[in-house]
């Protein structure tokens, strides 16, 4: 029997789909089941107490807030710096590939390595940053970047700016290069100001890339783990604790599998809701 060509997709798509269901479906279902499993055997067959406990857990509340602040400020600063650098790199410059390479370095190294370099850079006594600031005269006493409760989260966000802006820059640069040059020439002939050109040509031309960069960056920042684990492990106290590090702790330090599963399910649902517009946009184009 010969299979019709239009049915051949099965042989291409199915292996990937089956593999994905095998390596993903199974654990996802396990997580959801754990999140409603009673901690003591012999109780009712399912319970929502882990979810209601979440609302009573002050650490969860702090962690949720921290994650929100971390993601919002990280993505915001990534977009601003990423767009600025992309626009500079899109103009006529000598040695452009070299600059692009340098600007991408922070993004290619492992998360942990980035975290560790900066932990050492920010060391209050032996670190480079305080030394520079002291020498320039901007501060007159060393700053406790990672142990000062008021600064810790902001310091981590500052490091994450270094770590994450190159990706946004890369995506937006590709977008900028796709905007036809004659649009700018026409605007210049019409005597449009730089600001006007920016808002009427650059931003509309970049709209799709901005959505892509936003969606992917939000998801990646919510999942960010190695950087924070290497720098602060969530400390001091829970001041730099985010949902990913908190869930990890609940699993592997406190062994509260049911509770940890409940947190991760909440996190996942939030993430899927946030990225739904993006998924919708992309799959509609297909």
């Amino acid at each position, binding site marked *: 029997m010969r299979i019709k060509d239009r049915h*051949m997709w099965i042989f291409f798509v199915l292996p990937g789909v089956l593999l*994905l269901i095998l390596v993903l479906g*199974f654990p996802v279902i*396990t997580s959801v089941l754990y999140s409603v499993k009673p901690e003591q055997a012999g109780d009712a067959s399912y319970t929502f107490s882990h979810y209601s406990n979440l609302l009573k857990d002050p650490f969860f509340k702090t962690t949720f807030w921290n994650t929100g602040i971390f993601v919002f400020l990280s993505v915001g600063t990534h977009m601003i710096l990423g767009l600025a650098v992309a626009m500079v790199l899109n103009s006529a410059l000598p040695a452009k590939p070299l600059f692009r390479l340098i600007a991408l370095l922070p993004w290619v190294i492992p998360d942990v390595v980035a975290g*560790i370099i900066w932990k050492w*850079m920010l060391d209050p006594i032996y670190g480079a940053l305080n030394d520079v600031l002291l020498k320039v005269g901007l501060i007159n006493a060393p700053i406790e970047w990672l142990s000062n409760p008021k600064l810790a989260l902001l310091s981590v966000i500052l490091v994450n700016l270094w770590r994450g802006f190159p990706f946004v820059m890369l995506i937006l640069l590709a977008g900028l290069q796709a905007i036809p040059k004659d649009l700018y020439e026409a605007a210049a002939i019409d005597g449009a100001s730089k600001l006007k050109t920016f808002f009427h040509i650059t931003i509309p031309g970049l709209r799709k890339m901005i959505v892509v960069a936003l969606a992917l960056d939000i998801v990646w920042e919510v999942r960010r*783990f190695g950087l924070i684990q290497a720098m602060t492990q969530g400390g001091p106290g829970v001041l730099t604790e985010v949902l990913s590090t908190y869930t990890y702790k609940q699993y592997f330090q406190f062994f509260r599998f049911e509770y940890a599963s409940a947190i991760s399910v909440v996190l996942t649902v939030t993430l899927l809701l946030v990225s739904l517009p993006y998924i919708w946009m992309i799959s509609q184009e297909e």
Partner: protein
Amino acid sequence: MKPSTLIAKKGLYQTVIWVFLITVCVYCLFPFVWMLSTSLKTEAEAFRIPPTWIPLQATIDSYIGIWVRKNFGIYFFNSTVISLATAVLSTFFGALAGYGFSRFLFKGRRFLIGFFLATQMLPGVLLVGPYFKILSRVGLYDTRSGLIIAFLTICLPFSTWMMKGFIDKVPDELDQSAMVDGCSRMGIFFKIILPIVAPGMVATILFAFLLAWGDLLWALCLTSSEPMITVTLGIARTVGEFRIIWPMLMAGSLVGGMPAIILYVFLQRLLVQGLTAGAVKG
């Protein structure tokens, strides 16, 4: 406006741009320079106040130490094997699925594409717990194979999407005319499409490799014994030690980040193409 002020304005504009660009470069590079400088210091010098910028007595002891006194060789081997296997597997299955999505219109196609995209959004912490339980039960906890299976969850969706982007760029007429000549679909895929998108496959393999190489969460949760752990976990463990030997840690970090940096420098154009073809179409 007089021409002279126009030129002055243009000059000022250029200066601002260059100052900005150089500041960004210093911001990006300085931590690397500091890492290199520290890795070449003796332990005593690393703890000098104020810190020295250029090592007074440069030494490569730390670079020898990570291989001799620490098990960096093992970590490196593990990371390489795990990342490479993950990258090749996910790119192969990704290319198959990418071709299917690119060339066929079928019922549920949009749904499946949405499914692949949605799986990219799942956070690792949702999966590591169940993976720990499942792998322990089947005897794959603390093994390289266990970690490879787990990494497929991160890499396969990305690889599929990237490969689809590359295959989309190859005109469908090529497939059609090959079929007229009597070539089978599988034949077309392996003999015509794969050779054409070979650069794309390299980019996809590279990207998946970097994803796996850079991970900490999964390695931390699914491996534990010295002979099985990866470079990133080896480095992270050193930070947790009671007394951190900074020059050695910096040497380890630099060496651990090196494969990513080298691969990137050589394959920069391909990777940029792949990211924009996959994440960003058109």
